[in-house]
């Protein structure tokens, strides 16, 4: 194992997004504050509570999860595509680094960004409302787990994509709709029966509800199911991302 190589690439990945924090950290915070202020405080007059939880508090775990997974995905995907397009990829592919080490560094980079964004929005949520976190360690652990899974997805997308347009298509047409349909702003019990059934096929539904359980103690899905799906996604997508890197079909000739 090339530990120095692995840590160097990981630090580069983390350093990269911190160096442009105005693009990678601040926007998620601003949009989440706006969601809490506009959606939360205004809609709370009409939807006073869901499962006994004030509406503003109800949406905070969903906002955390939406930012966590979108940041985790976009970090590894955009970094990989950027390295491809800027001609930096040979620097790491020609170095004595294994596909496993390269993948791991990218995934950790995305995981850190997802976690940083998720935790910051959690703190904003606590600051803007009287929310108390039921299981703080489980909350942070779950944010990290989901960040890892979606950072792996990002690494797969980054390897597959050949242009920014392709990457944006994959994110805008799949990730964002699935996030919104996963129950950020509502409980699926409020949906018609067919839509409830459809939600069970949306993995992000389990992520949002798993986090909601660790923060608020309520969840549409069984918390164990959410945790197991998060674990399966983490392992499954990590393996696919590493195999794709090893195969090198989209990054080598």
């Amino acid at each position, binding site marked *: 194992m*090339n530990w*120095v*190589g692995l*840590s*160097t*690439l990981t*630090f*580069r990945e983390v*350093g*990269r997004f911190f*160096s*442009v924090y105005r693009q990678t950290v601040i926007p998620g915070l601003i949009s989440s504050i706006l969601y809490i202020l506009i959606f939360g405080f205004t809609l709370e007059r009409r939807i006073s509570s869901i499962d006994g939880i004030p509406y503003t508090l109800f949406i905070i775990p969903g906002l955390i999860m939406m930012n966590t997974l979108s940041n985790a995905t976009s970090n590894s995907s955009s970094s990989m595509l950027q390295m491809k397009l*800027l*001609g*930096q990829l*040979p*620097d*790491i*592919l*020609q*170095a*004595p*680094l*294994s596909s496993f080490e390269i993948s791991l560094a990218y995934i950790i980079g995305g995981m850190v960004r997802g976690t940083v964004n998720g935790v910051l929005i959690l703190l904003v949520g606590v600051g803007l409302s009287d929310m108390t976190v039921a299981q703080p360690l489980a909350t942070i652990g779950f944010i990290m787990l989901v960040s890892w899974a979606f950072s792996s997805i990002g690494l797969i997308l980054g390897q597959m994509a050949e242009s920014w347009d392709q990457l944006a298509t994959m994110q805008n047409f799949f990730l964002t709709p699935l996030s919104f349909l996963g129950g950020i702003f509502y409980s699926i019990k409020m949906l018609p029966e067919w839509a409830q059934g459809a939600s069970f096929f949306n993995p992000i539904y389990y992520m949002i509800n798993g986090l909601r359980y660790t923060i608020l103690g309520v969840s549409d899905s069984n918390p164990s199911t959410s945790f197991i799906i998060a674990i399966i996604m983490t392992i499954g997508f990590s393996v696919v991302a590493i195999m794709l890197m090893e195969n*090198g079909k989209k990054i*080598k*000739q």
Partner: protein
Amino acid sequence: MNTAIEIQNLKKNYGDTVALKGVNISIGDGEFFGLLGPNGAGKTTTINILTGLVRKDEGITKIFDKDIISDYRFTRAQVGISAQELTQDWFFPLDRLLYFQAGYYGIPKEKAKEQVDDLLYRLGLEEKRNSRLRQLSGGMKRRFQIAKALVHDPKILILDEPTAGVDVELRHELWEYFRELHKGGKTILLTTHYIEEAEMLCDKVAIIDEGKVIKEGSPKSLTNQSGKSGININISDKDIDFDRLLSDFTYTNNDGRLHFTTQEPEENLPIIINLLTNAGCHIQRVETTKSSLEDVFLSLTGKGINV
């Protein structure tokens, strides 16, 4: 001499396009080796296979007797590559990029510091150490590319068109630096369009065309084989017995215009002039011609290197 790079029967196709048709190259440890060929001849493909960027279809590729795939950690650590394409980066200053590069090769920052400082100084980039790549001129970017290849102090340096697009002054400075590195014991594999560059720097060159090595040898032996070197002397006296006087030389006499075929025109010229003047000849004009690798290349491929 140990073998630094061994390539045998290397083949590569990109779909229906045959890039390499069975390349054979052997480069000794400490050798300065040039790979010459026009665009699309297979130079960069050969290098990219050697460094793990392109997968070969067939053939043996070894570095210091180790296979580049099964022993990739060892073989990649031995090689530094200055690629033809200039790297870009938006995020980090030059020195951090060099520390990163060293890190990928397993060298921590504290151990790389001396080498990074030395390379930035030696390549005239010290004042730019905190600048971003986009702030550098083309020549500076080219020098950074070379610094990046050397930061882990590799035994083998691969220079893919290292002076492409740089001005004459910098080209000469870089040649001097490459000579120093070679004297210091590095094995250098150079690909270039500038035949003069290969002629001046390389111990040995291979001419590659359409995916195959068509000639290999020292620049001198290749130019000698081309047979275009010689001496032209015009004399006004036509009644001299040249056959007796110049019996040691191969020459033609066309109405007082003597053409000598020789691989060493500089060495033979004074001898011939001595013989002719001692025999009372009046010499009107003297000219030496020396064939270059360019001539060799032309005669072998039937086309120029920049096609």
